[in-house]
Structure formats: C-alpha cells, structure tokens
C-alpha cells in the first residue's frame, strides 16, 4: 500500500512510531502491537485518501496521533499516567525520577533493583540506574572486583525491585558489530573510551606477545614469566567474559548510545542515512570520494564524540585513558616495526640467496617448495601489510572479508611450503660420507722443505665483499666455489713427505653422500718444493651444494720444514657435519690438536710441530706471542727458557739449506751449459769439416771448368757459420 505523504508529516509519523516503540520496549508482544497500530494508521490514511485528499499532511498525522493517543496517555500495565506530569516515554531522558512507584512520594533517589533490565536479579541494573551509568559496566565491575556471589544474593534479597526505573545514562558500553574483528569487543570498548580500537587490541595481545618473546629468548626483551603465563589465559578469559556480558549494538539507537550521542529523531535519522551510505560504499567500488567523505564524517563524528566524552568522563579517567593510549601506541608501534623489519629482511635475504638456489635445491619438488615459500610465506604478508597501510591511510572502514580470508589462506599455504622446503632440504643433508683418505702421489717426496700454496685463479679474487654467504666463496652463473678447504699438518711415518686428501660431503643416505664425495673436484700437485692445491671446491648445478669439504693432510717427515701460505683459504670456519651429531668427524677430529698459523714456517720434530724459534705450535703460544708483540717490542720474541736447540745452529742450518739448493741449482745450470757448449762445438766442427770439403770441391771445379763466376756456397756457409 503506497501512501503519499509530506516529508514533515512523515517525520512526525516516524517520531510517533518510534516513541511507541520505546514505550512498548518491554512488552512481550511489542512487534505485534506496533504492527497492529501501524495497520490501523494505514487504514486511517486510506480513509482520508479516499475522501479526496491527494496527500497526507501534518494535520492528518496529528489527528491520527490524537486518535490513537500518545504513549503517555496509555493506560497500560506498567504505568502510563494520563497526567501531564509524567516524564517522557523516551528511556534515555535525563530524568532521574522514576515513575509512580508507590502511594507515597519520596525525596532523593533510592536504590532499587531494576526488574525490567535484569539478567539475574537486576541488582547491577539497579545500581547502574542509581548512579546513572551503563549496567554493563556495573556487571563487569562486579565480576572483576570479585565482590562475590554472596554479596550479590544479599543485595538481591534486600534491595526492593522496581518496574519503573529509568536510567539516565547517555553512553553505554556495547559491542560494535560494525568494526569487529572477532567479537567487536575491542571496538566497543574503544568507542566507549573514545580511543582507537587497535590500542585496545594491542593491550589484549600484550601477554600473548610476551609469551612469544619468551619463547624466542630475545635478549633484554624477555618479560618476566608471570606476566605471560598468568595474563595470557587470563586475558583470554576476560575477553570471553566480556563477549558474553556486553550486549551487541544492533539497533540504530543502541549504536548511538554506544557512541554517546543523543538518541532522538535527528540523530537516528542521520545515523541511518550514514549506514545506508556505508552500505553503498561496501557494495560499490571504493573510490577516493568515498574515502574523503568517510574522513570528513569520521572527523566530524570523532569530534562530537570527543566532546561527549569530555563531558561525561572525569579528569582522572582522562588521565588514565591517555596513559593507556600512550602505552598501547608504543606497544603497537614496536610490534609493527619488528614485524615489518623481520618481514623485509627475510624477503631481502631470500632474494639474495636466490642465485644460489640452483646449487642447493634439487629440481622438482624442492623448487616448487622454494617458489611457494617465497611467494606465499614472504610475499603475502608483505603485500598484506602494504594494503593494510594503504587502507588505514585512506580511512576506508570495512575490510573485504574475502580478501582477508584469501590472504590468510595463502599465507598458511606459504607456511606449509616453507616447512616442506626445510624438511626436504634437510633430508638431503642428513647423512655424512665416510671418512676415506686418498693418497696423492708426489713427484718428489724428498724435498727438504714444502710450501703449501693455492693455485692462483683470477676468479677467486672477484668475490663480493659485501655479500658473503658462508661457505660459498664465489659464484657465477653456472659454477660455485665453496671455500671449505682446509689443511692439516701431521708427522710423516717415513722420511719423505706424504700428502693425503679427505673429501667429505653430505647426502640423503650414506651411499649417496659417498657418491657425491667422490665427485668432488679437487686438484693438488707438486711443483718442486711447492704443493699447489685448489683454493676452493667448484661445484656446478648438477652436483649440488651438499656441504662439500676437503681436507688436505700434509705429512711432514721429521726435521723437515713446512709452511702453509696465507692465501690458502677464505675462512677458517669449519662447516662440516650435520646439526645432530651423528657423524664420525666430531669424534675423530679435534681442531686444537692440529693448530698452526698461516704464513709461518714450521719444522717437524719428533714430538710435534715447532716454530723455527723452538716454540711448539699451539694456540696458546701464539696468543702469548701476539700479546707480547703488542706490549713489549724490546724483549726478544721468544722466551729463552723455551729454547730447545741453539739458535745459531738453526739459522745456520737454514742458510745451509739455502746455499745447498743454490749450489745444486748452479751445478745443474753449469752442467747444462757445458752440455750446450759441447754440442755447439760439435756442430761447429762438423760444419767446418763440411766447409773444407766444399772448398776443396770448388777448387777442383775451378781447375777443371772455366772461370765462371760461380756461385760460392762457401761464402754463404761461412756467413752462416759466422751467425751461429
């Protein structure tokens, strides 16, 4: 049924029906009653229209209202009085008088239980009506302060009940269904105290965060135990309790109450219009105009709310709220900052590792996992954060629910990928290869002196100094060099140098590891008294990086010298082994037993390696030496008590060795020269002979033949000889 009606008349009508609604708020069949009345009004409208009116006017509406009657005129069970002294039926009026309660008047306010507003016994509602605050607050205080069931029951018994209490509270605590993430509690609380709901959420989340931190042992940031353990389940419980106790603001008037605005026809109208606009926004695209409109409206409403809050709150309350605000913002800021930093650093690192991907990962599932991890686990939070920031800046209220779910879903997928990736890669590194030593044949094993140096390869010098991903020393598109090469010095059992090479590798099974270990490219050869070895292990993309490790053992015979050059290796850190100690290496190898200093010459004695000054080669001595060097330049480098052999002898023997070598070289050079000279002489002689023979022949020819200007090969020969 369509009824043409003037706008003002419509307003009047709306107001009237709203007042009826308020009046019948507690009535059981409220909706039915209102429907009946509305039907009746419709009937009356029809009558008027039939009588010839084109449109319903204010007069019509007023007449009808008079006909049906105003709520205060009704004679119903819960007391309307036809007297003009009755207060408005609007339950949000500021009146503090209750309706005609008993046969006598009273001065001042009495404490009653509110029978209309009760959950259990109406005790809290009554107290709230007495103090003019929201009964929800009273209930929460009751529960939290632990006053106790007994007190409640006592109050229930002794405080009389009333049907006609009116609570003059203006701002009520509701759960806000519009801004909710879980239950709208933080949003409602935020609205009540006029703070940003995210602060409240931060406050709720603090115990959980400390829980997490404690778990992670982040240095000075460990909160004390009791905070996390008692507060986090407690906070959870509090949240649940609040969810149950605080009612949800469903109707427009309740929402206005939540924000603390005056509930009358204008504010209801405005908020309904706003909600409609809000619906439009949600349904339509989020344009810039929507954003700015929301901003305007938001600013306006927040200003109004602030005024309202200032008026209703006390000074102390404001101070507390401000303090909590600062605290909450701080926590929130730290949280957000830490999250963002962690996220971006993970993203950067993973992108940086990316070139190495081919060396580490097998094809197939692992690559899939890696991509999945990168995209979902890392990418999704980054994208989500960016959208969140954009959304906050544009002040767009409602987050698309589908987007949120899809983000979360993708991120969970990313987590799964990440876990799968780690598991899969760890599997490939699970086992270590057996420790087998291969002997390297030396071309001249009886040199008195051996220097171990690295094969100079230009590539090695070009490694990135800013990005070191241990143990990768250098890599380019198809080869990577792993600097897991180490040298060890041991005593030789024989009189000559021996060299052993141990190649080790990880793999998914022992056999796999052994296979991979045998594939390691490592070159070592001798050039006179220098042992040349590869500086790093090269791998390409087919044999993947599996923590390959090469150890070169130089067996030095007694009384022979050895020196390890400084350019042998990039990093002295050993990377061999697995995370869980199931390898033989740990049992077999003790680093400190085989200590030596790079670039230093040592001599092998019967009981170990000694420097040329007679100090045994171990870490402690070196530390002491460095220490002495720093502080005392004048004292001799070595302690006389540590002498085992006479100093001059040592030097002499060294120079002797050198001289011997020089002599040997000279001798060999001389002998070579001699040999060469002899050969030259022979050549000369033979050529001379040939020349004489030829000259003789020429003479013969000359005697025989005519004096032709013959070609004189002799000259030529002679010239040739000259040039020899």
């Amino acid at each position, binding site marked *: *049924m369509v009824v043409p009606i003037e706008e003002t008349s419509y307003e009047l009508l709306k107001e009237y029906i709203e007042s*009826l609604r308020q009046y*019948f708020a507690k*009535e*059981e*069949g409220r909706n*039915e*009653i209102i429907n*009946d*009345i509305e*039907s*009746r009004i*419709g*009937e009356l409208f*029809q*009558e008027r229209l*039939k009588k010839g009116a084109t449109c319903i006017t204010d007069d019509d509406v007023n007449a009808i209202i008079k*006909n*049906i*009657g*105003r*709520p205060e*005129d*009704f*004679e*119903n*069970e819960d007391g309307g*009085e*036809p*007297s003009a002294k009755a207060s408005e039926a609007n339950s949000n009026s500021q009146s503090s008088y209750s309706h*005609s309660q008993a046969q006598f008047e009273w001065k001042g306010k009495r404490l009653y239980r509110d029978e209309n507003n009760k959950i259990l016994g109406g005790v809290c509602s009554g107290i709230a009506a007495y103090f003019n605050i929201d009964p929800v607050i009273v209930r929460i205080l009751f529960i939290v302060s632990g006053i106790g069931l007994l007190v409640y029951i006592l109050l229930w018994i002794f405080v009389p009940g009333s049907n006609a209490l009116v609570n003059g509270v203006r701002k009520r605590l509701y759960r806000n269904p519009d801004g909710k993430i879980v239950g709208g509690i933080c949003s409602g609380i935020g609205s009540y105290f006029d703070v940003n709901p995210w602060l409240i959420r931060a406050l709720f989340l603090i115990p959980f965060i400390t829980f997490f931190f404690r778990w992670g042992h982040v240095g000075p940031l460990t909160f004390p135990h009791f905070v996390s353990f008692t507060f986090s389940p407690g906070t959870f419980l509090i949240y649940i309790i609040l969810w149950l106790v605080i009612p949800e603001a469903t109707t427009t008037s309740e929402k206005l109450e939540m924000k603390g605005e005056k509930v009358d026809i204008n504010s209801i109208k405005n908020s309904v219009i706003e909600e409609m606009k809000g619906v439009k926004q949600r349904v339509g695209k989020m344009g810039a105009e929507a954003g700015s409109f929301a901003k305007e409206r938001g600013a306006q409403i927040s200003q109004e709310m602030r005024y309202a809050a200032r008026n209703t709150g006390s000074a102390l309350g404001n101070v507390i709220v401000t303090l909590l605000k600062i605290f909450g913002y701080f926590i929130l800021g730290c949280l957000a900052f830490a999250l963002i930093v962690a996220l971006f650093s993970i993203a950067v690192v993973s992108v940086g590792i990316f070139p190495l991907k081919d060396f580490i990962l097998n094809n197939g599932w692992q690559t899939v996992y890696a991509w999945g991890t990168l995209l979902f686990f890392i990418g999704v939070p980054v994208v989500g954060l960016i959208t969140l920031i954009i959304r906050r800046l544009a002040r767009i209220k409602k987050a698309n629910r589908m987007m949120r779910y899809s983000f979360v879903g993708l991120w969970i997928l990313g987590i799964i990928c990440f876990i799968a990736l780690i598991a899969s890669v760890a599997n490939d590194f699970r086992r270590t290869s057996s420790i087998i030593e291969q002997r390297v044949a030396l071309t001249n094993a009886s040199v008195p002196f051996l220097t171990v140096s690295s094969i100079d390869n230009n590539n090695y010098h070009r490694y990135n100094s800013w990005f070191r991903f241990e143990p990768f020393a250098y890599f380019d598109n198809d080869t990577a060099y792993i600097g897991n090469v180490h040298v060890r010095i041991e005593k030789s059992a024989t009189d000559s140098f021996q060299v052993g090479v141990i190649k080790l590798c990880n793999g998914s099974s022992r056999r796999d590891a052994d296979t991979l270990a045998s594939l390691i490219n490592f070159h070592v050869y001798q050039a006179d008294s220098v042992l040349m070895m590869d500086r790093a292990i090269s791998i390409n993309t087919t044999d993947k990086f599996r923590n390959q490790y090469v150890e070169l053992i130089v067996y030095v015979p007694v009384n022979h010298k050895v020196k390890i050059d400084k350019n042998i290796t990039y990093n002295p850190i050993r990377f061999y082994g697995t995370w869980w100690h199931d390898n033989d290496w740990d049992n077999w190898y003790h680093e400190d037993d085989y200590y030596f200093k790079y670039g230093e010459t040592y001599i092998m004695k019967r009981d170990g390696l000694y420097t040329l000054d007679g100090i045994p080669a171990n870490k402690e001595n070196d530390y002491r030496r460095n220490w002495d060097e720093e502080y005392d330049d004048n004292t001799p480098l070595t302690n006389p008590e540590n002498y085992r052999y006479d100093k001059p002898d040592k030097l002499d023997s060294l120079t002797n060795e050198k001289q011997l070598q020089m002599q040997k070289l000279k001798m060999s050079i001389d002998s070579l020269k001699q040999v060469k000279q002899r050969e030259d002489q022979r050549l000369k002689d033979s050529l001379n002979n040939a020349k004489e023979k030829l000259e003789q022949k020429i003479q013969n020819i000359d005697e025989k033949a005519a004096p032709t200007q013959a070609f004189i090969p002799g000259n030529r020969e002679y010239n040739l000889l000259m040039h020899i």
Partner: protein
Amino acid sequence: MNIDNTASQMRKGVLEFCILSIIKLGEAYPSDIIDKMKAANLNILEGTLYPLLTRLKNADLLTYRWVESNSGPPRKYFSLTEKGAEFYNELETTWQQLANAVDEITGKKN
C-alpha cells in the same frame, strides 16, 4: 493524591472485563470495540487497546483471524476462546460482587 490517578486506576480495573464482554457478543475488530466503548461513554485509546488485546491473546483468552478488506490493510477479528469464556464468567461474578459491595458501602443500596 491525584484524582486522575485514582480514576485511572479504577478504569484500568474494569477495562479487561468490558473488552471481553464486547467480544463475547460477537467477533469484533479493534476499531469496532473502540466505537462501542465510546457509545457507552467509556473512552479508550487505541494505544491502550492494542496492547491489551495482544496480552489477552497471548494468555489464550482471545483468538483472531485475518479478514481481507478492500479499503485498506487486512483486519484482525477477535473472538473469545473457551478459556476466555470461562475467564469472562469469573470476571462477571467478581464484578457483581464488587459492585454490590461498593454500592452497599457508599450507601446506594440498603
């Protein structure tokens, strides 16, 4: 003391009884009931009547049916249930007793 208050209390007491008696005479819809009450000089507002009717219906004393009308929305026609009839009889007895007692006390009846 307020005369309107007391008068209102008195009216409130008998309203149910009157309404039930009107409906007892025959099916009636709210507008009708109001007209009849007005004819008998007992004015009642619609806003008072509707809740009352609803309450009586919820108490199973009344029942209704919808009747379509061409001049407006459908109307509810109320009628007494069995329980309502019994209730009415009791009320009537009560009223009679009350009326007699009051008459006697106020000296109207000897």
